């Protein structure tokens, strides 16, 4: 049977958590998309639909002390890292109960106490920061790993170059996860890169490059595990490219008119959720009925989170000047 080995290695408990997290991301994103289009939610959103296997596959191999950093598209990473959907929804509504007390919003979702830096929404911006977090672990001889998530577009930024090179020369325990979803906003990767695999760029830093199927959570898990284990054992950083696709727009109200119908159809058929569900059913981990139960439970959690967010208090007007400096009030 396909995937029997890895399924056994991961075990039912973890597989359940992985499926649940992927379903949570999908359910969360689909709901808030609706809330945004209805005009009920403020701000803007960049969604993770179709890429669930990437965040969940990587975060499933991490330990409590590890830390991740994300991008302007952070909802999936936040759920995969275990942030509460209530606190995330509070943040999306800009309420005082949000994981960043309403100061961050969609693009800065995160909570360091849960192992996720508030997301950095400048493309490529988190990469040197992750190198620094890993460097701190190394300087203190801690067996912790820092993981940077970024997209194909970020690999053309200077920060990518500087961050990876610095991690390479300092042998920092970092993993650089490039979610290659083939488009930087509306621009095809073919217009922005002359190489097929972003992982090949690892060669120019003298670090390990690797590629996994970003639509298959088990493949992501296996490759991420190797990269994270190596980083933890002081064997240096890895650039791990995940081949994936957005099954949604770049940002709110983007209808993806720059993608062909064939391309959309092709990737829709690779949707990571039914793919993973089928593997679990074929390996008799879950019945269809059990999966339906999980889906219902996830739906209830998302509904509950929305109620929590909507019902949360607005920030206090005095909060605007709070939380900037540790040691002083904001000067006038």
């Amino acid at each position, binding site marked *: 049977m396909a995937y029997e080995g890895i399924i056994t290695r991961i075990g039912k408990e973890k597989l359940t958590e992985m499926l649940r997290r992927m379903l949570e991301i999908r359910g969360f994103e689909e709901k808030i998309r609706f809330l945004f289009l209805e005009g009920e939610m403020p701000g803007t959103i960049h969604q993770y639909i179709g890429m669930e296997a990437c965040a969940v596959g990587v975060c499933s191999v991490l330990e409590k002390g590890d830390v991740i950093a994300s991008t302007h598209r952070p909802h999936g990473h936040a759920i995969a890292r275990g942030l509460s959907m209530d606190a995330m929804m509070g943040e999306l509504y800009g309420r005082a109960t949000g994981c960043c007390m309403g100061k961050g919003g969609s693009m800065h979702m995160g909570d360091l106490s849960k192992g996720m830096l508030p997301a950095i929404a400048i493309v490529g911006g988190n990469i040197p920061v992750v190198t*620094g977090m890993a460097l701190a672990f190394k300087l203190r001889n801690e067996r912790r790993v820092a993981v940077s998530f970024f997209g194909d577009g970020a690999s053309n930024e200077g920060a990518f170059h500087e961050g990876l090179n610095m991690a390479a020369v300092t042998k920092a325990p970092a993993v650089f996860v490039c979610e290659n979803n083939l488009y930087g906003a509306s621009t095809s990767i073919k217009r922005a890169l002359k190489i097929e695999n972003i992982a090949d760029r690892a060669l120019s830093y003298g670090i390990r490059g690797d590629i996994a199927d970003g639509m298959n959570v088990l493949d992501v898990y296996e490759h991420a595990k190797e990269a994270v284990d190596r980083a933890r054992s002081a064997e240096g950083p890895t650039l791990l490219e995940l081949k994936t696709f957005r099954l949604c727009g770049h940002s709110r109200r983007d209808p993806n008119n720059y993608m062909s119908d064939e391309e959309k159809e092709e990737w829709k058929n690779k949707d990571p959720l039914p793919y993973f569900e089928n593997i679990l059913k074929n390996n008799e981990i879950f019945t269809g009925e059990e999966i339906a139960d999980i889906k219902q439970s996830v739906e209830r959690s998302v509904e509950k989170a929305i109620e929590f967010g909507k019902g949360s208090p607005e920030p206090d007007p005095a909060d605007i000047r709070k939380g*900037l400096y540790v*040691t002083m009030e904001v000067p006038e």
Partner: protein
Amino acid sequence: MRMGIAEALRKAIHDEMERDKSVFCIGEDIGIPGGYGGAFTVTLGLEKDFRERIIDTPISEAGIFGAACGAAIMGMRPIADVQYGDFLFCAMDQVVDQIAKLRYMSGGKLKVPVVMRAPVGVTGRGAQHSQNLESYFMSCPGIKIVAPATAYDAAGLLKSAVRDDDPVLMFEHKLLYGSKGIRAESGSIDASSDIPEDDYTVPIGRGIIRREGQDITVIGSLLMMHFSLQASQMLEGVGISCEVIDPRTLWPLDLELILGSVKKTGRVVIVEESPKQGGVGAEIGMQIAENIPDYLLAPVTRVAAPNTPAPFSPTLEKLYVPQPERIADTIKRLIEEY
């Protein structure tokens, strides 16, 4: 012991690294055996005592400041430096978008205790190794800015910066370092002080009156503090009594000290080495104009560089940087007119 700024900073960094294992230095050419100890010898020899914690990097400013940011968030106390302040622009996203904003974006949940060191000053190197960048960062909430004019303040402020839980950017002046050997700087001004052997700090946010006077307040930091003192000495002969203030910290400004002095004298000249447009003087001057308009006997006045990049020609450079004579002339004219 008598020390120049470079030596005093070296001792302060050494003290802090000895005191706290989470302190480390990261920068270019800072600890290469046989090298310079950074562009102006500040870290010279520190690698002998702290090999693991003096991190020499590739030429990679965004990498340096990004790494300092990440390490600080994870509980370290990095001291990151650039060889010339101008290179901070290469790291601008890391400094302004990450270091300055991450705490606020997190809802006040994390800390980014980074110390950033940057040499400034117009010193015979043309437009790209000369800029005084203070005003760029004074318009960026989230960072404290210090600018010591003496060795005593440099060491004391460095220690305060390392122990501060917020990001602190320290501007140091190339002509004030007192660097020796192959990195000695021509045209240097003596900024040395007696540095106590015992631990001390200079608080961030506190300026100092360098010279007491009655007729006019002159405000200048770094090299401009020394030139302002020279100008006030020149004016002594013609019976003009200047009060010279060294802000030492540019953000948060010591408004109590500044406003108190201007209330007393009724006149103020702000001296800065950078172009007048959108400068340090604009902020300090408006603080005075907004807060104590009724005390002003004369318009708030600035002496600054022209609104151009720094020229190379030594003749033009001397016209560019406010010289003690130009400062004295402006003060004299102001006293005569008002």
